[in-house]
């Protein structure tokens, strides 16, 4: 019996890092949009918040696309 600890370890590490990074990115996007809405409601403009939010979402979408690529490949 040979347990592939290296594979298990890399699954552990990759899952941890990717999950936290993705959730963090997406949360920043969501929060950015919410701040931007709040700013607009107050009559100001918050273009940087909006652009940042869209950048976050774009990165998340890229991650999802990579996920689909992994499933298909």
């Amino acid at each position: 019996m040979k347990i592939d600890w290296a594979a298990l370890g890399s699954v552990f590490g990759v899952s941890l890092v990717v999950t936290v990074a993705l959730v963090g990115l997406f949360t920043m996007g969501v929060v950015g949009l919410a701040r931007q809405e709040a700013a607009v409601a107050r009559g100001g403009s918050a273009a940087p918040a909006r652009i940042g939010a869209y950048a976050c979402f774009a990165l998340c979408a890229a991650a999802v696309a990579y996920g689909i690529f992994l499933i298909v490949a």
Partner: protein
Amino acid sequence: MEHITLLLAIVVVTALVFDFTNGFHDTANAMATTISTGALKPKTAVAMSAALNLVGAFLSVEVAKTISGGIINESGIRTEVIFAALVGAILWNLLTWLLGLPSSSSHALFGGLIGAAVMSAGWSSVNGGTVVTKVLLPAVAAPVVAGLAAMLATRLTYRIGAGTDEKATAKGYRAGQIASAGLVSLAHGTNDAQKTMGVITLALVTGGVLAPGSNPPLWVIVSAGMAIALGTYLGGWRIIRTMGKGLTDLRPQQGFAAQTGAATVILASSHLGFSLSTTQSCSGAVMGAGLGRKGGVVRWSTATRMFVAWGLTLPAAGLVGAGAEFLTQQGTWGVAVVAVLLIAGSGAIWLASRRKPVDHNDVMNEATDEVATGRTPVAAGGPAVAAEPAGVVTTAIAAVSPPPTATALAVPLQRSEAPDLTASPIPAPVSAVAVSDPAPVATV
């Protein structure tokens, strides 16, 4: 020759039934949290999951060449052994569904295969080391990996999102959750529908219909995809309820973190060479997300029942598989008896489920839910399904498993529910209604 053809037909149908229970059982993995946080309506969620499962079945061309991944020696396997293994897996899937417990369908299939192979060819046909590395270790690792990832992600999302309006952000989290749930469904379709195609193809090869090493015919791909999609669409609402509400209470952030964690773990594990069970990853992620929120709780009584079911999956499916294989060895009548027992057992479990049906209308219903999650003092500790009279389940098991050992095995499961059975949860909602609404009491 006719006899072999009939047997093959039975095996193909049984494999499709297993595929169906697989979809049925695993809808919860992708959609339980999506439904419980309100990201999608129950029917919409299962329809989306079913569609993605169907797509997934057609996506991958790499068909599983082995059904057990090296756990048993498949070179001399007979068609009857596959049949017996499927019977064990189906019955365990149905029983855990009746109890509302998420458990791995693949492990049930492995268990059935091990039991049937041991009965057929002795212990030497099982590769013990592979059992440890492919079943036991992943069962421990999956919930830990997914749980830790989801817990840290939940903490992070609460920290970053602190101070924002929860209503404004909930929509965003729900959208993200739907995307992760879609990935889980797609991955499930490619993995598990392939597994059934592998089983059917192997049966056709052992039956001499296909040449060894050939790819599955189109009808196999189509029927396997349809079976898993249909099972997914009908939705194992009992398991969805346990995962979505029974283990913990999820808010949109947590649901998103849990589902993303589960999707990441499933994809990472299947592509880094250490395969983890989808069900166990998702359950672990849900619990981790539950622990990640301040003040969040995990209902450990429900979780413990789930862990017990995971531990029992391999031996229970194995015993039924072994019993079924013992009968099929007796000849044609034995195969017929097993087929009848399978139908009778499934029917009994289905009838037992009708006593307290759970469908898309009340899957997240608070009234039934209180009983389900054991939040009322009277029903403390167990889902509503535990209230099923012990006799029903025991007879169901007794009816479906020829060897007495399988009945004995069910005893610990029953025993763990014994307190719930004595403290019947049924009066709980009644008394709650009586307190909140005195009018009916007065009229009565």
